[in-house]
């Protein structure tokens, strides 16, 4: 299945060559959670504060489905 991934701020540093304009299109096989996917990308789980799957805030343990878009964020805030 294919998944579209976006990374925010410091998490971008863990994926060499990450281009924000393109995001990452990944092919994934077998049951995969958002956490599995993060580990595959070498993102330290301790630095991920928020995972959004299709624009909804979910958990690292949430399974990913074909065609999902997944966004990873460290702690961010403003106002």
């Amino acid at each position, binding site marked *: 299945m294919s998944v579209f991934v976006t990374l925010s701020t410091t998490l971008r540093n863990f994926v060499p060559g990450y281009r924000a304009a393109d995001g990452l299109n990944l092919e994934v096989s077998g049951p995969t959670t958002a956490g599995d996917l993060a580990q595959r990308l070498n993102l330290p789980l301790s630095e991920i504060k928020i995972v*959004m799957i299709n624009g909804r805030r979910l958990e690292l343990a949430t399974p990913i489905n074909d065609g999902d878009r997944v966004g990873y964020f460290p*702690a*961010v*805030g*403003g106002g």
Partner: protein
Amino acid sequence: MIKILRVNMKTKACDFQDVPAEYDGLGGRGLTSAIVGKEVRPTCTPLGPHNKLVIAPGLLGGTNCANSNRVSVGCKSPLTGGIKEANSGGQPGGHLAKMGIHAIIIEDIAPEGEWYQLELTKDTAKLVPSTVAGLNNYDAVAKLVQQYGEKNSYITIGRAGEFRLTAASIAFTDRELRPTRHAGRGGVGAVMGSKGLKAIIVNPEGGENLPLVDKEAFTAAAKRFSKALLEHPVCSQGLPNYGTAVLVNILHEAGGLPTHNFSAGRFEGHDEVSGETLNRLTKERGGEGVVAHGCMTGCIMRCSGIFPDKNGKFMGKWPEYETLWAFGPNSGINDIEMIVRYDYQCDDYGVDTIDVGAAICLFMDAGVLKYGDAEGCFKLMEEISKGSAIGRVLGCGAATTGKVYGRRRVAEVKGQAIPAYDPRAVKGQGVTYATTTMGADHTAGYAVTANILSVGGTIDPLGKGGQIDLSRNLQIATAAVDTVGLCLFVAFAVLDIPDALVAIVDMLNARYGLKLTLDDVPALGKSVLETEIKFNREAGINEFADRLPDFFYDEELPPHNVKYDIPEEELRTALTW
């Protein structure tokens, strides 16, 4: 000694007075709202002689507490017709506090066409004819610095304030003497303009840190408070490195980034106008660019970066998230340099970036400009400074522009533009927009925290549950924070690290010799809100004004295809306790 300064623009009398006992325990917003509530007739004409402009540092201003030198500006708003408090960073807040000036109350009006500036020292205050009338903020401040020197700080209005436009702001100089920090919202600059007051020269000489009743206890608590700020990743990493613009990408992902006049919740060009892009370009270009810049002495979160042009020269400050949103996604512009230039124009002419940016979008909605027309937007912005009819419409903000062009989809509450977080996809924020005493104001109860950022708990942003309580509690806490003089961004630490609030209470007790407990904090917030609600009721703004424009209830917002669905009857309970 701590005192209040009364300045009468008609008689030119400037009197230092003792602080009346009834204002004990109040500063910042709590004090401006108390004075406006007591001394300004709610039915008065906002631009007339009976309105007053009140400027007040917060309760912990002029101390070593981190991020405590904000300054509040209060009056009856010509934009909303209700009470207004707009606060700002910059140097004057800390200076006024150290000079022992608890509040400046500007009364009555000068004869039309006469402009004055207030020369202020620790012990003296004098109104003199202004030497900078007719100038915008950057030129005005540069000339005042030549005339009065670099050790002062300056409070000014640009030409928009002179024209008394309802989105006019008041500028406060930053540490580098640039007029980049603003009390932006509600037309406070128009009220200063209506009085004939062009500038205040704040000479801090002889000012000193304020006496502390218990110095040791204060120092210990101030340390704990700083520690909490430095421990919290938003305050110590996110804000300094990416500014408030760090929000662009997360609001886009959450589907709550209002795009093309609130018709979608995601914007294709989002990354080009994001905090990540500000950070990258500022580092690449170097020169006068600064990542992690503090807008005032004592700020340790430093969100106000400086953006360099291609040659490394100062181009403008990092625009706030709301500025990037208004001119960017909502107006279809994905050119970050152009947005830095609009932000500079706003700072220079002295207008609120939110209301004017939202008005630009309505010019596009009306077909006067095309969405994404970056050059056209720049030219239209210049009209504000020229004082042309179209520039005056723009400088009066979104509600006026919407009326002039007969638009149906105008995102405003009580006449003030709704910023940067679509209420349909961030429902708690919708409660705040609808119900705050200020007109749509995101800072008044920042529900984005639990709705999107997982700070202070988590509440589903698309659901109705818990949103009213969330907004109410945040509005109460914010009224207290604004009274203390703290930059609101301390709230991230306060919401997540329990000792941060305890440290604030300990500092207040050590500073003033009080015996406050944690329970007194919400009590303070509530009493500030009660004063403001009473003023609004007597100004003719009742609870039925606590609503959102109906297009939010009628139209679905992609990508989540959600409508606003918290009934008006429920919204009307938000500010009851």
